[in-house]
Structures are given as C-alpha cells and as structure tokens.
C-alpha cells in the first residue's frame, strides 16, 4: 500500500513538488527530531568546529574511497569500498548537520543558495582552507595495498576516538559515536584481514603492502596532536583529545603488521596540528575540485 506511487513520486510529494536540490546527500533532514540543544558551558562555535574536524575526516576519506569505483581489483571489493564510503558519508552528513545546527557554516552559506541544506552547503561550498581534515585521510590512494593500509590506520584512529566519544556530554556527538563504532570496527577489521592477505601473500603483494605502510606511516605525524580547541572541549567533557588514543592505536597497528609479516616503521616525530587548522597540501583542493565542481557550476540545479 505504501508503494502505490513510485519512490520518486512519493519523495517529490513529500517535498511539496518543489524540486530537490540536485547534489544533496539525502531527502530528509538528518537531525529531524533530534534534540540539538548545546550542553551548558559549551561554546556552540567551538562544538561546531569540532564537528567539522570529525565530519571532514569522514567526508574526505569517503571521497577518496569512491575513486576506486569501477577500478577495484575485484567486484566484491568494489562493493566493500563503496559500503565503507557510504558509512563514512553518513557519519559526515550527521556531523556537518550538527555543525550547521549550532550555526557553524563559515563562508559556505554566502555561496550556497537558501534551499541547500546546511550539511550540503558545508560539503560543497567551503574552500580547502576551511576544511579541518587531517592529511592522513586526504593523501592520494596510491595502489590498492596502500589504500588498504590507509583505511586500516584511519579506521583504527577514528574507532579509538569514537569509542571514547560515546561518553561525550553532547548527546548528539555521543549518539553519532555510539552508532559509528560498530561501523568503524567492521571497516578496521576488513582492512586488517586484507593486509594479512597482502603482507603474508606473494612476494609482490608483500612488497606493495610494505611500500604502502612506508608511505602511510609519516601521515601519522599530526594525527595525535590536539589543537587548543580540542583540548578545551576535552576538558569540558565534549571532545576526545586524540593524544589519549595514541597507545591504543599503536598497539592495534603493531599487532596487525606483525601478523602480516610487515616491518613496522619508526613512529613519526610529533608535529603540531596542520590539517585541523586548515593547512593542507594541494591534494585537498584537487580532491575538492572533483567533489564540488559540478555543484558549484550549477548551484541552483534541482530535479
């Protein structure tokens, strides 16, 4: 009975037949009905900035992973990579919507027309220097082995942060984290099992896996360096200081690499945060060109 109309007719009907913004992530408001009150004593602007950090990591990694669509080594892995990207896109959507709900929209709102949802305005109409992702998620994919190594490292870091974030005083962040941990554990374990196959596989797959590890490890330099904002929000019980996850991450990665017969590189020297402050290499602007180009050329398009 619910499907007497087609899906698109039903969606069109639900939106009053006004047409839907052509590049949106969804038809529904992601936080509809969720209490978005900011906890006492928390600066909404800082909470929003923190949501951008976590949201941008997910959005940028999702974009990198989808570069494998039509190019994966096997069909099942293409489906896997797309599913991981979809989970991350969902997390990004909620986190960017949370940022928008507390009024953190940066310059994006000036460029985006009024009918574009906040999370889409943030995704499509911010420039690279307004993105708060780390270099770990933005680096080019490399070959499949390097992609798997980066996914393993990024999922391990994010899982460790989200596991702690379940206790956040911001109920929206806590709920996003509680849901995300199950997805991230699945991503991490999938990547880890792939790395065992590649590392402990043929001479060629071992060489590529080791090259991937050696290429990804330096990207850990600023992953655990907290910004002042993260420290303040951690003290307020809202955020997670990434440095508190370092030993857990190191132990998980060490275990996987040992089992995969791969050599563990030197842990990179600590560096001050860069990506979290909007300082990126040219690869972020390039990635955003692919992500945002069409929407920026036709910002008012609907369908």
């Amino acid at each position, binding site marked *: 009975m619910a499907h007497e109309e087609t899906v698109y007719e*039903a*969606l069109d009907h639900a939106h009053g037949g006004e047409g839907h913004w052509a590049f949106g992530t969804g038809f529904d408001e992601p936080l509809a009905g*969720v209490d978005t009150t900011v906890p006492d004593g928390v600066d909404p602007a800082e909470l929003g900035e923190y949501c951008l950090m976590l949201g941008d990591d997910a959005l940028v990694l999702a974009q990198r992973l989808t570069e494998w669509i039509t190019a994966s080594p096997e069909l099942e892995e293409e489906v896997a990579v797309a599913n991981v990207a979809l989970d991350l896109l969902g997390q990004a959507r909620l986190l960017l919507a949370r940022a928008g709900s507390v009024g953190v929209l940066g310059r994006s709102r000036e460029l985006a027309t009024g009918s574009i949802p906040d999370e889409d305005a943030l995704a499509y109409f911010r420039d690279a220097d307004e993105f708060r992702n780390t270099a770990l998620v933005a680096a080019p994919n490399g070959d499949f082995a390097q992609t798997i190594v980066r996914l393993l490292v990024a999922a391990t870091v994010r899982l460790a942060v989200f*596991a702690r974030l*379940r206790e956040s005083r911001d109920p929206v962040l806590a709920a996003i984290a509680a849901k995300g941990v199950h997805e991230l554990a699945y991503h991490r374990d999938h990547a880890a099992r792939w790395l065992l196959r590649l590392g402990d596989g043929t001479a060629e797959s071992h060489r590529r896996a080791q090259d991937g590890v050696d290429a990804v490890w330096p990207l850990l330099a600023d992953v655990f360096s907290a910004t002042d904002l993260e420290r303040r929000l951690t003290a307020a019980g809202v955020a997670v200081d990434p440095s508190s996850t370092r030993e857990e991450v190191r132990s998980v990665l060490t275990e996987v690499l040992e089992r995969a017969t791969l050599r563990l590189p030197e842990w990179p020297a600590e560096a001050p945060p860069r990506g979290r402050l909007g300082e990126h290499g040219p690869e972020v602007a390039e990635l955003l060109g692919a992500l945002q180009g069409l929407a920026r050329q036709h910002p008012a398009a609907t369908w």
Partner: protein
Amino acid sequence: MTQTAQGHEHAGGPSEAWEVAARVTDPELPMVTLADLGVLRAVRIDADGTVVVEITPTYTGCPAMGVMRADLVHALHRAGFGDVEVRTVLSPAWSTDWISDEGRRTLAAGGIAPPGKAPVRTDGPIPLQLGPTRRTASCPLCGSADTEELSEFGATACKALRRCLSCREPFEHVKEI
C-alpha cells in the same frame, strides 16, 4: 495521548496509528515491515493531534531513510490521519537483535538469511578480529548449514554475501550489528 481525529473520519488513536505505520515495509527489503526490522521505534499522538513517528536508521549512511519517511507519511495520510511528523532517533543505536521473529521468518522466506546474535556491546575498546568472520548462516533456499562468505559487504549497508556449498546458490545475509 487520546485520539483526536481532526475531522478525518477514518483516523483513530495511537494504537490505530501504530498499526498503520507498522504495516509500512522497508524500501530495500520489501518483504519486511519497518516494525519487524526494529526501525519503527514509537508512534504517538500529540495534544494538537499530530501523529509523531520515531524511526532509527539501521546504518548511519542508510540512504533509504527519506523514502521511509515519505512512505510513513503517505500511509498515515491515506488512513485519514492529518499532521504527521517523522522524527529520527539516533540513540540507542539500532541492533539486528531488534529484528522480530516474524521479521526473521519473512527475510528467510524472501531468500535472505536472517542475522545471528549481535556481538556483545562493550564500553571499552572494540577488540580486533583478525580471523575469518565467525558468522554462520544457513542457506535460505535449501536449509544447508554448509555455507561460506563471499563478501563481507553486499548490495545494501546491512547485508553480506554468502554462497551455499550444498545447492551452490549465492544468497544475502543480514550481518549482525
């Protein structure tokens, strides 16, 4: 919470609204209702007569939420209810343990192996699983327990792909979460 018909002759109270909402099926698993999937969390009628429906996403990125909303609103309007508001509930996170026995039966009848028991949820670090996934699933077509996993991911976020080693048919499996 008493029923307020708002002039619609077929409208009823909260239990009637629940029954209407509970018959709406999942857009991607059309054999199962949102109620049997555990996605439909609550239906109530506010003092002003608005029907408030609470749903929770299976996965964070589930792209079907918009269709579910539209289907719920449409079904309730057709049943004579006036204002309908569909709200998202993020917490507690959905678990496959919320799929009802009826939901599991209809999934299997539709050729999709239902999930086993969901992993125990812990407050601490989530332990690494390096071995092959411990999931098992019987073939929904021939009933054989001799099946293997082809892919940890499938056509939708909630499913993995398996193959029966007895009848050789591939099938989907709702993965435990």
